[in-house]
């Protein structure tokens, strides 16, 4: 009888400590809710909210996983001041944001009596943000409704999350994570989107420290395969 209990315990402990996959590629994807805080020139600030999606494609070893990570968000911005060269404009409108970067993820051991596994991931991130101003006032230079304002930024991202510890990745383990990214802009551009299919870059300028973006995202998704 005791040996049966022992055997059951051994099997259970094996299941709990087993990873859904090891030494394999995996693709994960899900939806996101994003909150961004922007600090811009003239100390103008804005909080932006949006929704989007996140993806991770990577290779998992035993406890470590190397991923190519991306997250995207679409949402609304309130009043901020934008400047590029001699063009300066106050406005509000919509934005789209796309970030990419390599991340290294570490999975902690599965705790007894739980089905979830904690993980933490860190990596550099590069992103592009494009703003379409719906309501704006031009302070200097020329700005038209079909123009877009864009900036590229770079920084770091940190993710803390929970992933279902299942015996196989065919069961599509779910995950929920909190992602925090801090980035500074390095290039701004003024774009002309008059042609639906083609974007013209009217002006491009290098910047270093005058746009700071902090993004907090809640990502929920599953292992696709």
């Amino acid at each position: 009888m005791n040996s049966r209990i022992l055997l059951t315990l051994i099997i259970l402990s094996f299941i709990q400590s087993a990873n859904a996959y090891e030494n394999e590629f995996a693709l994960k994807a899900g939806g996101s809710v994003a909150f961004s805080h922007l600090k811009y020139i003239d100390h103008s600030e804005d909080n932006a909210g949006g929704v989007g999606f996140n993806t991770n494609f990577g290779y998992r070893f035993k406890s470590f996983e190397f991923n190519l990570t991306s997250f995207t968000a679409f949402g609304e911005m309130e009043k901020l001041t934008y400047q590029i060269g001699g063009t300066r404009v106050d406005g509000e409108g919509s934005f789209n944001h796309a970030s990419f970067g390599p991340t290294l993820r570490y999975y902690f051991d599965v705790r007894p009596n739980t089905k979830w596994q904690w993980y933490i991931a860190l990596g550099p991130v590069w992103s592009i943000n494009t703003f379409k101003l719906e309501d704006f006032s031009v302070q200097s230079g020329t700005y038209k409704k079909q123009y877009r304002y864009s900036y590229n930024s770079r920084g770091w991202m940190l993710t803390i999350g929970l992933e279902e510890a299942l015996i196989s990745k065919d069961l599509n383990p779910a995950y929920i994570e909190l992602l925090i990214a801090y980035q500074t802009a390095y290039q701004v551009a003024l774009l002309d989107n008059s042609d639906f299919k083609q974007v013209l870059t009217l002006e491009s300028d290098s910047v270093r420290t005058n746009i700071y973006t902090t993004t907090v995202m809640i990502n929920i998704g599953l292992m696709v395969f």
Partner: protein
Amino acid sequence: MRLISFLLIFCLSFTSLGFAAQNEAPEPERQVKWHYEYKDRSHTKLETWKHIGIVYGISWALYPLTQPTVFTEEGSFKKYGDNFGRVVFDRDTPFWNWLVHPISGSQLYLYYRANGYNRIDSMALSFISSTLFEFTIEIYTEPASVQDLYQTPVLGAIVGLGIENLSLWLLNTGHPVAKFIGHTINPMTLFGFFEGKVRTYPIIDGKGKTGVSFIYEF
């Protein structure tokens, strides 16, 4: 009286049997000539290189054909040299980044799936094919872009998986309209290299038992 009772019971049991038979009658189904599915198998290295080569050749042919204006007006071999090895963030519209590239990535994924690669291998090979396109073909007109390098295979695989499941369901209904839509969204199922097309033969043993036999052709 006994006779009437017997007849009544007989008639009731007969009609109830009839109703039961009517209820148990199978739903009418369309007879399908072909069954569609995906079969994963292992491949030799030579075979994989051959597929990468085929996709690469087709990409060279399709790029000027699908975007003739961009190719002739903006493309040049000088640009090819200038763009070689460069990677930038493109500022393309969502139409390109969120629609065209994921859809073209999905077709790459479905090409490899049709040739018997499993899902993750199909995605990895799509990665290789789209990276080759970005770094050695599209640079004739513009430098390689971060968004295209990542989104074409990754979002393409996710869209491709959805198309894969939906098209199989549509194709296996046997309905001509559903089959038309299934082939349209997943045109790889039309080609001879699609390995999951199975001929079905109905089997009737003459004792009331029926079945379907699947014959794979390689």
